[in-house]
C-alpha cells in the first residue's frame, strides 16, 4: 500500500478540490474527504480479484492435465503429480474464497467448492451407486475440494484411487470446480467488472458493502470452521481435530495461512488501493494509530501465530493445543476490528447473520 501512497494522495487532493461547492452529498455517506471509491473498486478487481481467479484457473487446468496423464499411465509418479497440483489448486482457492460477491455469489462458489467437513458416507454411497446429482442438497457436503482431498489422500495406495468409480467421482468433481470457476470468470469479464466498479456507494448491496460483508464472513469461517470448531471451542472444550479442513492430505495449516493472506490481500488491495487506503482517507483511527495499521498489525500477528505451528494443524490440536488457542486469541482480536470498527468507519452495514434455519 505504501507504494501507491503518492498517487493516492494526488487523487485525493484532486477530488477534494472537485467537491468544493458540491451540495448534493449523500447524507448517508461517511464523513471524510471524498475518495474515488470507484477507482478503489476497479483496482481491487484488477489487482486482487481477477489475478486470484486466474491463478486458480491455471492451477485447476494443471490439475486437469495431470489427471489426464494419470489416467493414461496410472503410476506412482503421475499419482504424486496429481496430488501436488491438487494441493496447489486448493491453496489458490483460499485467496478466492473471500470474494463471494456478484458472479461467485450467484454460483454459490464457496459452498460448491469448499464445504467441509466432508460427508464421507454420502460420498461413498454416491461413488458406489454411480447415480447422484452433485447439486442436490444431500450432496452439499460430498463434493468439491474436500471430495478430491479424500479421494487422493484417504490412504497411501494409488490402487484405491485408480478404481473406476473413484476416478469417475474425481473427474466429475474436478469438472464441477472447473465449470463453476469458468462461469464466474466469464461473468466478470462480460460486464460484472463494470458493474462492480460503478456500484460504488456504501449502502446495503453496494460493492463495498458486499465486499466488507464477505471479507468478514470468510474471516469468521476461517476463525470458526478452521480453528475454533476442531479445537473444541464450540463443544465445551472437547477437541474434534478430525474436523480440520483438508484432513486427509493434512494440509490444513498451509490452507489456513493462504486463506488469511488472501483476506489480508483483499484488505490492502495488493499493490493497489484497498480498503486500508480508504480508511486512511477517512482518517479512521484506532486509539492513536491509524485503524488500517492496527488491522494490518493484527493480520501480521495472526500470520505469525499460524507460521509458528508445526506443519499439521490436526496434530497441533491433539498435542499442542495452547499454540492453536493462542492463534484463536489473535483471530478474535482481529475480528473485533474487522467486524465492528471497520464497517462503522466505512458506513457499511454488516448484514449477514448466522442462521441455522431453525
Amino acid at each position: 500500500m505504501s507504494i501507491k501512497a503518492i498517487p493516492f494522495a494526488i487523487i485525493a487532493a484532486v477530488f477534494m478540490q472537485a467537491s468544493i461547492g458540491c451540495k448534493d452529498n449523500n447524507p448517508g455517506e461517511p464523513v471524510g474527504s471524498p475518495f474515488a471509491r470507484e477507482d478503489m473498486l476497479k483496482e481491487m478487481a484488477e489487482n486482487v480479484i481477477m489475478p486470484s481467479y486466474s491463478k486458480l484457473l491455471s492451477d485447476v487446468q494443471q490439475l486437469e492435465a495431470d489427471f489426464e496423464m494419470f489416467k493414461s499411465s496410472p503410476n506412482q509418479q503421475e499419482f504424486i503429480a496429481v496430488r501436488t497440483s491438487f494441493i496447489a489448486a486448493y491453496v489458490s482457492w483460499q485467496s478466492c474464497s473471500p470474494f463471494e460477491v456478484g458472479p461467485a455469489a450467484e454460483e454459490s462458489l464457496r459452498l460448491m467448492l469448499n464445504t467441509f467437513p466432508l460427508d464421507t458416507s454420502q460420498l461413498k454411497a454416491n461413488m458406489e451407486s454411480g447415480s447422484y446429482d452433485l447439486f442436490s442438497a444431500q450432496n452439499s457436503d460430498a463434493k468439491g475440494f474436500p471430495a478430491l482431498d479424500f479421494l487422493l489422500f484417504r490412504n497411501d495406495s494409488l490402487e484405491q484411487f485408480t478404481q473406476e468409480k473413484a476416478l469417475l467421482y474425481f473427474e466429475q468433481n474436478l469438472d464441477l470446480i472447473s465449470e463453476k470457476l469458468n462461469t464466474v470468470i466469464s461473468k466478470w469479464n462480460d460486464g460484472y467488472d463494470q458493474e462492480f466498479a460503478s456500484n460504488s456507494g456504501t449502502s446495503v448491496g453496494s460493492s463495498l458493502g458486499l465486499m466488507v460483508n464477505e471479507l468478514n464472513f470468510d474471516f469468521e469461517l476461517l476463525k470458526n470452521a478452521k480453528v475454533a470448531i476442531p479445537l473444541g471451542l464450540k463443544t465445551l472444550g472437547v477437541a474434534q481435530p478430525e474436523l480440520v479442513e483438508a484432513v486427509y492430505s493434512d494440509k490444513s495449516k498451509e490452507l489456513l495461512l493462504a486463506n488469511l493472506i488472501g483476506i489480508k490481500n483483499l484488505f490492502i488491495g495488493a499493490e493497489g488501493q484497498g480498503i486500508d487506503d480508504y480508511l486512511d482517507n477517512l482518517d479512521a483511527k484506532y486509539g492513536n494509530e491509524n485503524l488500517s495499521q492496527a488491522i494490518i498489525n493484527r493480520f501480521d500477528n495472526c500470520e505469525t501465530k499460524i507460521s509458528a505451528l508445526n506443519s499439521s494443524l490436526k496434530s497441533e490440536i491433539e498435542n499442542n493445543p495452547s499454540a492453536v488457542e493462542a492463534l484463536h486469541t489473535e483471530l478474535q482480536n482481529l475480528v473485533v476490528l474487522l467486524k465492528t470498527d471497520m464497517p462503522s468507519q466505512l458506513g457499511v452495514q454488516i448484514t449477514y447473520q448466522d442462521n441455522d434455519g431453525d
Partner: protein
Amino acid sequence: MLVSKLFPLTCMALLLGVSSCKDEVQIREKKFTVPSTYSFDNVDYSGQIARLDQLDEMVSYIETAIKAKDQIESEVLMEMFSNANENGGGNFSFSSSKQLSDKCFGPHVQKVEAYFDQIELISTSQNEAVNGVAGFSENTSGSIRLYDENGVELSEMIEKTIMGAVFYYQATAVYLDNDKMNVDNETVVEGQGTAMQHHWDEAYGYLGVSNDFPASTESLRFWGKYCDRRNDLLSSNASLSEAFRMGRAAIDNKEYDLRDAAIVEVRKNWEKGCVATIIHHLNEAVDNLGDDHTRNHVLSEAYVFIESLFYNPDKIISNNELDEVLTKIGANFYEVSAQDLQSARDQLSTIYEMDNIKSAL
C-alpha cells in the same frame, strides 16, 4: 427462591431510571412487568417441539419392543435420530425437516450411535439379565427391562443422553451463548420475533413445558417433567420459568444486562434440577440395593444424568469432580455398594449446597 434473587435486579433497573426523569421511570416500570407465564409476542419453538416428538417416538419404539422382548433395530433408531426422509425412514408418525443428530453435541454423536448398535445386539438374546450376562429382567409386577452385562439400561442411556446432548446442550450452551445472543434484536419476523427473541424462545422450547407453565403443569415433557418432580423441595418450576420469562422480557426491552443475568439463572437452575434428580435416583438405588431390577434402572438414570451435567457451559462441578462421582458409582451396577453410592451423592450435595435436602430428595 429465584424470585427473591431476581427481584433486586428489577429494582436496580428501576433505580437507574429514576436518575433521569419521571416519565422514564414509568416507562421502565411498564417495561419490567414480567408476565407470570411465557405469554410474549411472536413465540415460536416448533422446531424444538418436533425434536421432542422425535425423541418421544424413539423411546416409544424401544419400550414397545422391550415389553414384547422383540429385537430392536439399530437401523430404525439411526433413521429416527437423523430423520431420514423427513419421517425417520417411515418410523415417525409425522413429517418434519428437523433432526436430532445435527443438533447433538458433536463429539458425542458416535456415542449415541454406538448405543443403538449395542441395544440391537443385546435385544436379540433371550437371556435373563444377571451380572455378566446381558438380557431381559422381569419383576413380580410384570415390568420388563433390558440390561447389558453390567446392568446398564441402554434405553435410559439413549433417551437421557439425547436429552442432555441435544436439549440441555442446545438450550444452555448454544442458544443462550454469545453466538446466538449477540444477534439482531430489531427486525421482527412475523410469528418468530427478532433473531435474538427467537433464539431465546428456542432455548425455552427445549425445556419441554407449555407457555402456561408454571401455572399449569399439564403436558410436561422430558426436562420439564423432571423439573416438576423436584419442585416440592427446590421450587424448581418457579425458578426456571421465572429465569426464562425474565430473559425474554429483558430482550423485549433491550436490557441486555438483565438478559445476561437471566442466562446465568437459567443455566444455574436447570443444573440444580438435574443434580436434584441425580441425588433422588442415587437415594432410590440405596433404598433398593438388593433389587437388581430396580437398582439398575435408577442407577442408569443417575449415571446418565451425571454425564449430562457436562453440557452446561456454566456448570458448577468441574470435569475432574464429574469423573470422580462417576468413578464412585463404577461401571458395573451389580457390584455397587451403598457406601459408594452415598459417597457419590454426598460429593454432589456438597458441591451444589444441597446437604440440607439430600436425604429428602
